[in-house]
């Protein structure tokens, strides 16, 4: 497999090799994505609020799954404790609201708060790998829950509603604002991850995925970059939690810190395709569709999606998008590179594979 990091020794040959981000031109897919966002932005003017409410929940799941995918699919950090930051994001909204801050202004503050908390949390877990890392994050989530329920002013073990502006404002306006806030956080999350992965950070992460020791010895600041990824994922999940609190108008500690959030983001990412930006988006939509159709059957959708995720992890590791992208040769968010040898057509292009093999050493 030929990658851009290979020495391209003779400079003449190097000049002749063309490097592109994708095999086909995909600018039209980018335009389509922008148009899609614009259409989604107009939706509150034309659609019923039941539709936009449903989309808010889909957006939140996409944000969470994308953040988990950034951690596990790109940085190799399998967290089972992202619900810590979801809960803390939700409770940040509550605390700000109790001090008279409008929740929609509290949203960016909540993102900031969870990012700041992500720094010491990273310090606790940074030396751990694989299962150790997973369970340590889980313990941190449990500690956050146990600390929060100690405060009667935050509703203790039963939770409380968000006071202030959300209750007094016009409900149609509130729903529209909630929808736009969710859309903004979604675009910022997916766009932010895309930019992050196309930067030097993405390059180092790819190098770590292929060979961590080689990446370290050629000067990649691996620990620093994993820290950045962890803090970004903490902030993103904090934003998702804040949106949940705003859309539900209350916070409830067992729900806010539930490990089922981890299950949702993991299953959605695995089914959609881990290690691609598109995968978690597709997975989240599938997850939500199934959740809606099985809502009256209690816990069934977790059972079914869990079994599907296990099957995908074992037998179709690149998920749905992995299968689609190979067949159709498209990338909506190209973060890898294609090499074009001099004087040859497109069929000779070789790819620096963007999809990691989950679990490869």
């Amino acid at each position, binding site marked *: 497999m030929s990658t851009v990091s290979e020495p391209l020794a003779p400079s003449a040959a190097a000049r002749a090799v063309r490097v592109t981000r994708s095999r086909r031109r995909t600018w039209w897919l980018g335009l389509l994505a922008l148009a899609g966002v614009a259409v989604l932005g107009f939706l509150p003017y034309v659609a019923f609020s039941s539709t936009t409410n449903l989309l808010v929940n889909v957006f939140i799941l996409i944000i969470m799954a994308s953040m988990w995918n950034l951690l*596990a699919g790109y940085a*190799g950090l*399998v967290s*089972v404790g992202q619900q810590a930051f979801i809960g803390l994001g939700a409770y940040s909204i509550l605390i700000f609201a109790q001090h008279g801050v409008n929740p929609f202004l509290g949203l960016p503050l909540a993102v900031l708060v969870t990012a700041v908390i992500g720094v010491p949390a990273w310090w*606790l877990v940074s*030396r*751990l*790998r*694989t*299962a*150790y890392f*997973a*369970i*340590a994050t*889980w*313990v*941190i989530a*449990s*500690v956050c829950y*146990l*600390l929060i*329920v*100690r405060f009667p002013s935050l509703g203790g073990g039963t939770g409380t509603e968000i006071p202030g502006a959300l209750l007094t404002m016009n409900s149609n306006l509130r729903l529209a604002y909630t929808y736009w806030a969710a859309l903004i956080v979604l675009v910022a999350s997916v766009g932010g991850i895309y930019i992050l992965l196309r930067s030097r950070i993405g390059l180092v992460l790819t190098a770590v995925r292929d060979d961590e020791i080689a990446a370290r010895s050629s000067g990649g600041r691996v620990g620093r970059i994993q820290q950045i990824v962890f803090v970004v994922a903490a902030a993103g999940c904090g934003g998702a939690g804040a949106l949940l609190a705003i859309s539900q108008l209350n916070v409830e500690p067992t729900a806010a810190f539930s*490990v*089922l959030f*981890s*299950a949702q983001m*993991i*299953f959605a990412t*695995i089914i959609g395709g881990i290690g691609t930006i598109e995968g978690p988006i597709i997975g989240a939509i599938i997850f939500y569709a199934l959740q809606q159709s099985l809502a009256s059957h*209690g*816990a*069934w959708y*977790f*059972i079914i999606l*869990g*079994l599907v*995720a*296990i099957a995908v*992890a*074992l037998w179709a*590791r690149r998920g749905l998008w992995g299968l689609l992208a190979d067949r159709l040769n498209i990338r909506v968010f190209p973060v890898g590179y294609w090499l074009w040898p001099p004087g040859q057509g497109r069929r000779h292009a070789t790819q620096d594979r963007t999809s990691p*093999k*989950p*679990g*490869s*050493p």
Partner: protein
Amino acid sequence: MTWVNTIIQGVLLGGLYALFACGLSLLFGVMKVINLAHGDLAVVAAYVALGVITVTHVPALWSVVLVVPIFAVLGYVVQRTLIQSSLNRGPLNTLLVTFGLSIVIENALLQFLSANSHSIPGGTLVTASFNLGSQIQIAYLSLVIFVVAVAVLLGLQYFLSSSKHGRLIRAVADDPEAAQLAGADYRHVFGIAAAIAFATVALAGFAFGLYSQFDPTSGTDLLLFAFEAVVIGGLGSLWGTLAGGVILGVVQQIGAQINPQDQILAGQLVFLVVLVLLPQGITGQRRTA
């Protein structure tokens, strides 16, 4: 005197945690696998024992005779199918598969058996206790669980160091490929290790069902306690696991003594402190995680 009582209760509780932890420790030691469904399997064992008792009306302890072998067979089968195929695909996949299993088990229990909590009817064994002095009351059940835990750890230690299969397991744990070249089928040996681990999980789940109430969501806490005991004690040492369980039990009881709400929190804070200050655990063996 209350504090002496607290510590004694904590030590006895630690026996239960060590019993939970030894299966986790064994699987990690042999295959470098942390089974995230560990706690949920214990809960399933408790439900199966409860079912056996309800249907056949045998005394509680007899159900162990049925449940433990069932889980040993289940462990072998799960290892040879799910875990082995995820092992072949790398450590991240093992985590995802066992986490998926954990969520599926928990929700299946919720779906079929409701969220109500149960306990295994153990009769006089559960309620009987004896006094040491005026303030220390020791429940027979706690003492029996502690003794069983120590016996299981002793048995495992003896099995691993002296028996033919135990030596095979250690050989495979050191280097599966070399063991394979020397004629050992490492998949079969992994299966045996998993069978033993699942049998201890079943025993621990049964003990937990006697000791306290359980419901479909109890598994999460049990997994975290077992893992904390393993990490506090230090990896790869069964006696470290017992020490880790006892430390966790004592810390939890002290936390509960200060404020009943703080039992679990105290244990988890101590776990995080150990993680930061003594990443190798208190037994301090230099093993890479």
